[in-house]
């Protein structure tokens, strides 16, 4: 949809498709990370008994720590993989 209806300001600037692709990948990664955290922390923290509509105090605290830990693990694994600089995919 962004191909149609540009305004005057836009028409004076060139769009570099590589910048758009990079932004798309960044967006994709952030969304994927968010979705995985939602999944994992729901499984770790939320009681399946569904006794009330609100998060309990324990669940809330667990979520906060769970998100922080997931970020931590994400960073640590990223550092580790950068060290190794290896690739493990089928060609």
């Amino acid at each position, binding site marked *: 949809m962004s191909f149609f209806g540009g305004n005057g300001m836009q028409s004076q600037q060139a769009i570099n498709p590589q910048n758009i692709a990079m932004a798309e990948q960044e967006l994709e990664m952030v969304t994927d990370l968010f979705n995985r955290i939602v999944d994992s922390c729901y499984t770790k*923290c939320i009681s399946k008994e569904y006794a009330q509509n609100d998060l309990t105090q324990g669940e809330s605290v667990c979520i906060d720590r769970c998100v922080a830990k997931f970020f931590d693990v994400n960073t640590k694994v990223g550092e580790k993989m950068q060290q190794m600089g290896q690739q493990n995919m089928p060609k």
Partner: protein
Amino acid sequence: MDFSRYNQAEQAQINAMIEHKQMKDFLRLYSNLVQRCFDDCANDFTTKSITGKEEACINKCADKFLKHSERVGARFAELSQQMAPQ
């Protein structure tokens, strides 16, 4: 995410992309919620309409799931901001 390094034309296109993605993410959240609450709450297949007990469970599950997602989103935003300058 900080896209200020891009020019205005690029930012306009990126914003359109973000908007489109938010719509898709909302639909994904919705169908994830439905499946998770169905899996956790629907266990009686002697009837084909949901029972009162199942409906109560689904209501609580849906509320918890949304509040959970919201809380994760808030923490996620904070932590992303903290990491940005690095």
